[in-house]
């Protein structure tokens, strides 16, 4: 038997005449002579939704749910997307999960190289360095027309111990703000977060409790309205005491009481 799938099931030319290659632009060339020598990622497969981040007086609060969607199928529900890099930096990743896992490996390697090898303990890797590094990685990949399909938020501290919060996406675009979100969150959550921090410098007026509350509220709104979001998420708090993970947090205080009063789509009364 010929094991080349290209050779399977071709109607014999003798019986049916020459195959019309114009149909569906099909090609008859063998695979190795394909006009595409190599195909890069053209779209994400397993995806994850928003990451949220907000600065407060002496730290940062971040959140991201634990869902990996396969298209509209909510396929994986135990994915941790907020990863710790070094001692005091958290990187939150949304977008393609396989590319996220690749980033995870790159960051693990970075940590080994920079924090362990040849280090006298004076060369600590901090958030601004991780952010710069990631922006180089992502920009480099998109410049090769082979992007890592992710949006990333890096949280940590500056040299002067002030909170650090910056964004990078698959194009290598970066920006920083006191409130940041990726994906759906940038439409739904950022407006809520900005009510707490109207201007960038105002983060100094926000307490940890206030920051946590607005993140919890934003996660609830996202669960209401984002069809690719999940009810359980991870909440991370960074402050002078270190990095604290709250896992398996549930969206709470949902209001569905009103639903029973809605009937039909217009004139229906019953």
């Amino acid at each position, binding site marked *: 038997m010929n094991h080349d799938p290209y050779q399977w099931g071709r109607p014999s030319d003798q019986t049916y005449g020459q195959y019309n290659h114009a149909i569906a632009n099909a090609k008859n060339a063998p695979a190795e002579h394909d006009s595409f020598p190599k195909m890069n990622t053209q779209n994400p497969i397993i995806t994850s939704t928003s990451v949220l981040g907000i600065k407060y007086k002496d730290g940062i609060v971040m959140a991201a749910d634990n869902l990996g969607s396969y298209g509209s199928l909510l396929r994986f529900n135990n994915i941790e997307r907020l990863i710790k890099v070094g001692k005091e930096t958290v990187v939150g990743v949304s977008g393609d999960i396989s590319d996220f896992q690749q980033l995870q490996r790159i960051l693990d390697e970075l940590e080994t190289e920079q924090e362990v090898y*040849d*280090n*006298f303990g*004076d*060369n600590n*890797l901090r958030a*601004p*360095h991780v952010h*710069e*590094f990631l922006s*180089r990685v992502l920009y480099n990949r998109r410049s090769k027309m082979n992007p890592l399909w992710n949006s990333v938020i890096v949280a940590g501290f500056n*040299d002067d111990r002030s909170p650090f919060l910056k964004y990078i996406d698959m194009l290598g675009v970066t920006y920083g703000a006191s409130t940041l979100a990726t994906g759906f969150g940038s439409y739904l959550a950022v407006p809520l977060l900005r009510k707490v921090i109207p201007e960038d410098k105002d983060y100094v007026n926000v307490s940890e409790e206030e920051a946590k509350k607005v993140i919890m509220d934003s996660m609830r709104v996202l669960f209401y309205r984002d069809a690719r979001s999940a009810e359980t998420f991870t909440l991370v708090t960074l402050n002078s005491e270190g990095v604290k993970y709250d896992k398996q947090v549930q969206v709470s205080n949902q209001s569905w009481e009103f639903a029973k009063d809605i009937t039909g789509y217009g004139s229906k009364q019953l």
Partner: protein
Amino acid sequence: MFRNNYDNDSVTYSPTGRLFQVEYALEAIKQGSAAVGVASKTHVVLVGLKRNAEELGSYQKKLIKIDNHMGVALAGLAPDARVLTNFLRKQAMNSKLVFNRPLSTSSAVLSIADKAQENTQSYGSRPYGVGLLVSGYDETGSHLYEFQPSGSVLEYYGASIGARSQAARTYLEKNLEKIRESASMEELIVHGLNALRDTLSQDVELTFKNTSVSVVGKDTNFTVYEDEDVQQWLDKLDSVTNSSNRNDEDEEEDAGAAAEAEGNDAGNQDTTEDRMETDE
């Protein structure tokens, strides 16, 4: 007659566990003119004595800038120093580009130490024939390192390399406290020049032509003072000649004598089966 079998390449140990090619490379440093480094808590100063091959020639540069916060002084083969400093510059730029942070002095100096070490255990290569004093100011403060072609790297508060550098070392040891407590970079530079002055042989004095000064530190980018710009620092010295050397008999003596004086016992350890001198 006494040809030595153990110094043909850098991968062969002598029966006493020495690598002669590496030791010859260290010898090349002693042939180079002297360089001195001193570090206070806020600044690091490097000074070097430049040599010219002949009256009409220019003076060989002793100080090389790596980055705004780092620079080196060399003694030995200048081309080897160029290779190493170009590598350091690459490391510094990489750190700036990839991490947006200045290269730390310790990782800089360890990176060239690793390069040098490789050349001591691979066939067909030779060790670098240059010693470096690496000065840097980073987030952990001021640092002064001595790099040797053996791959060894040590941190110092005061260090000197090159011909007659033992004399400078003596000055540094005597004045260590004052050097460490230097409040200003001016004070530190004067200490550096005083130490350098002690390496001078008879009939030579520090002039703006043969002296190079560099400083790096808190709020001070690495700066090299050369030619006329050095005069301001020389003016701060009580004398530009080596007073202890004025009635020096042998003009030709150099590092060899100094080394002998301090380490006679070490020199006598040589046995006939394991000797280094191949010249005769």
